[in-house]
């Protein structure tokens, strides 16, 4: 099996984050399965940006540590990357000191001279590099130029195309890389980021209102939805802060509109009071949480899965919340879609957890089939025009602990939605009977939600020496590692709360379990211990802001735990 990796690097401001995804798409359209992984510091200019593309004629899922072809647009790349003998390195070697003794396969492209001779600006350096890369990998230039057309404004299009063509001319036959031929298997696949899948899942579900404050790595949900707001008739608000972001969404949902907010851990800290408000008023709400290392501002542009216990315990007191932990594009899309149904049906906060790796990397999947997608708005009072000014028992159980909603403006549906404990009509009540009745009714929902949420799924050979236990994005590197090693399998949790832990416990039987998570303490392992009494002693944890690289997992399995 042949997996090839291509990486482009340079200082922020060099167009790495436009060139990288464009080349990933060029490869996909050439018939490969593709994964694209961006790394960038939290600054606008300078620092080291890179975008790592993995591709193959078989499905690829995740990022490798190794690199076959490296495009170095500047000296900074050589300071940051380990250059090995087998690597093809594309760079302006004439102008980068200290590279003379490198033992890699050098493809010397005189970027500086090309720009000067052709009177081109520095910003097209990335297009020259894409031309070179396309030629080396045998990508049809028409595919590349079509992508330029889709991505560049008309006034700079020709300039970028001629830059790429000049780059192509510099490639000699001996520089070419023998890649497996692309096939048509991936023609209809989508290549998109996790955040785009979340946004589209929400749009598909009839999202009406999205409000939040921008925070990496959740911001691109806001950006993408803002672009779509007029097309689909959605209101998208960048609010004054995260508190307003979540409370506004609660206001919209109270008024009957499907509402969502999205943030990262620091923003969720501010939103915490709002989660409790949604819970006690039983206002449906979907919250997309894209995790990054913390606490406080932590490492804004890096990845970690360390907010699980925060979410499970969020806000004061106890209430039912749904925590979904999708692991790929399909799960992100369909689970976000379903998150709105669950929120409406059960009238509880629903979290869709992701992380920087899943949110901002590009994944390639054949997904988004309309078949079977259904909208469920739950119990909604249709009104009583005979007695339009009557108060309505909004918080009275209809079934399974669930009461009936009434949208403001509905005749005969009047009620109060208070952050205080309340009676059936929403009037503040603090007597013990009412409190007990409400807590028991609200928690009754849990039994029914449990039946709806997916149990962990086993991937890989049925029996194996090691069974990794993971959640969320870690599914991706494990899927990729499975292609190289059959000594392990893994259980992936795409939902964590509330699920049927008795059944989960059965799934653990006779297995050599290893918790694999990108956090310091093994949060899922800790939840498993609490819920099942099973203590997973072996933990493979990573907390350096990077996802698991495929080689690391293979190495771990080889070593034995």
């Amino acid at each position, binding site marked *: 099996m042949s997996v090839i990796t291509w990486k482009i690097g340079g200082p922020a401001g060099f167009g790495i984050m436009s060139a990288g995804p464009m080349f990933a798409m060029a490869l996909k359209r050439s018939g490969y399965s593709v994964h694209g992984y961006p790394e960038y510091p939290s600054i606008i200019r300078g620092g080291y940006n890179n975008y790592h593309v993995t591709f193959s004629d078989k499905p690829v899922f995740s990022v490798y540590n190794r690199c076959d072809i490296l495009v170095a647009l500047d000296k900074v790349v050589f300071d940051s990357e380990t250059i090995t003998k087998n690597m093809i390195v594309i760079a302006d070697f004439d102008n980068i000191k200290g590279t003379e003794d490198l033992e890699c396969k050098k493809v010397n492209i005189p970027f500086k001279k090309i720009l000067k001779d052709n009177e081109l600006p520095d910003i097209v350096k990335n297009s020259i590099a894409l031309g070179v890369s396309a030629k080396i990998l045998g990508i049809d230039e028409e595919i590349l130029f079509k992508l330029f057309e889709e991505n560049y404004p008309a006034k700079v299009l020709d300039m970028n195309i001629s830059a790429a063509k000049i780059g192509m001319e510099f490639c000699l036959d001996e520089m070419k890389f023998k890649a497996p031929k692309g096939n048509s298997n991936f023609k209809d696949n989508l*290549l998109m980021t996790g955040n785009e899948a979340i946004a589209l899942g929400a749009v598909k579900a009839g999202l009406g209102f999205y409000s939040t404050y921008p925070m990496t790595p959740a911001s691109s949900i806001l950006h993408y939805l803002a672009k779509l707001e007029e097309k689909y008739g959605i209101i998208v608000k960048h609010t*004054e802060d995260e508190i307003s972001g979540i409370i506004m969404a609660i206001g919209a949902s109270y008024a009957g509109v499907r509402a969502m907010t999205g943030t990262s851990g620091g923003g969720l800290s501010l939103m915490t009071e709002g989660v409790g408000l949604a819970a006690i008023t039983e206002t449906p709400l979907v919250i997309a949480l894209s995790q990054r290392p913390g606490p406080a501002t932590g490492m804004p542009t890096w990845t970690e899965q360390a907010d699980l216990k925060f979410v499970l315990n969020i806000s004061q007191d106890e209430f039912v919340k749904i925590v979904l932990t999708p692991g790929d594009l399909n799960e992100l899309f369909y689970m976000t879609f379903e998150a709105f149904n669950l929120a409406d049906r059960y009238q509880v906060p629903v979290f869709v957890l992701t992380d920087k790796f899943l949110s901002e990397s590009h994944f390639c999947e054949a997904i988004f089939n309309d078949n079977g997608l259904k909208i469920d708005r739950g119990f909604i009072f249709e009104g009583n025009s005979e007695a339009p000014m009557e108060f309505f028992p909004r918080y009275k159980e209809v079934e399974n602990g669930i009461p009936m909603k009434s949208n403001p403006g509905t005749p005969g549906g009047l009620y109060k939605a208070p952050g205080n404990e309340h009676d059936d009509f929403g009037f503040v009540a603090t007597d013990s009977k009412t409190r007990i009745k409400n807590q028991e009714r609200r928690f009754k929902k849990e039994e029914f939600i449990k039946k709806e949420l997916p149990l962990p799924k086993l991937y890989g050979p049925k029996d194996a020496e090691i069974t990794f236990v993971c959640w969320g994005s870690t599914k991706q590197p494990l899927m990729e590692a499975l292609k190289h090693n059959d000594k392990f399998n893994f259980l992936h949790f795409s939902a964590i709360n509330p699920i049927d832990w008795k059944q989960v416990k059965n799934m653990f039987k006779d297995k050599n379990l290893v918790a694999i998570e990108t956090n310091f303490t093994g949060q899922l392992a800790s939840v498993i211990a609490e819920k099942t009494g099973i203590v997973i002693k072996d933990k493979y944890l990573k907390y350096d802001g990077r996802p698991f690289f495929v080689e690391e997992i293979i190495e771990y399995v080889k070593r034995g735990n």
Partner: protein
Amino acid sequence: MKAMEFNSGKIPVWCPGCGNFAIWNAIKGALADLEISGKDVVNISGIGCSGKMLNHLRTYGFHTLHGRTLPVATGVKLSNHKLTVVVNGGDGDGYGMGVGHFIHAIRRNLDVTYLVHDNHIYGLTTGQASPTTDKGLKSKSTPHGVIDEPLNPLAVALNAGATFVARGYSGEVEHLKELIKAGINYKGFAYIDILQPCVTFGKTYSYEYYDERIYKLDESYDFTNFDNAMKKIWEKEKIALGIIYKKERDEYASLHPQLKDDILLNSTGKLRDISDELARFK
């Protein structure tokens, strides 16, 4: 509906003599005069004695967290801009915790009527200084006297670009009712600061205190003049009641092309065709 019919049937737990009774009556009277049905009204309340208004009106209602009335109001109003949204909060709620949201609601010119029950004290938490409490005043949280300058909320509003700034007084119910009516009729953010004695904890700002100082702006006052308004707001000895500043300005919902034809509520929660969007990712 008659004013009486806006009673929810719940008996208020405000202290006898509390200014909230007058504000309650003024709201009911305003809704009745304007012939708005209670089912089309959402009353959004904050935390504090003002927040209890929610329980006493026969309307829809949302009792939010401390300081968070205006974000709820924004979500509600944009979701269904045909609803009449009346927001009740206190000086602690709106000028303390909620002061950021206050300024941003003004920037947006959201079409709601925002009533701030300004008693210069925290009543429900039994008498701490609020952002509008005068310097030097002793309270439970400032036993040595307040050393912060008081906030002039009307000046804040005016400087933030508010285009309907008014002051009412709970000792003048009819006048207050007319202000609330004007606020509801105003297409945009109608902000009314309501002077309200707290008979239990706010001994300084009593009915006598206000009765000696208030006066009503008459027809000769030009409320479209910004500089005049600023002067009125900073008057030291006397306190002007009425519409202090008013100007037409585009109301927030009208600036959303998505809301031109219908309310948001009618398009939400329906399966959408996203195929052309998906095609971009192929």
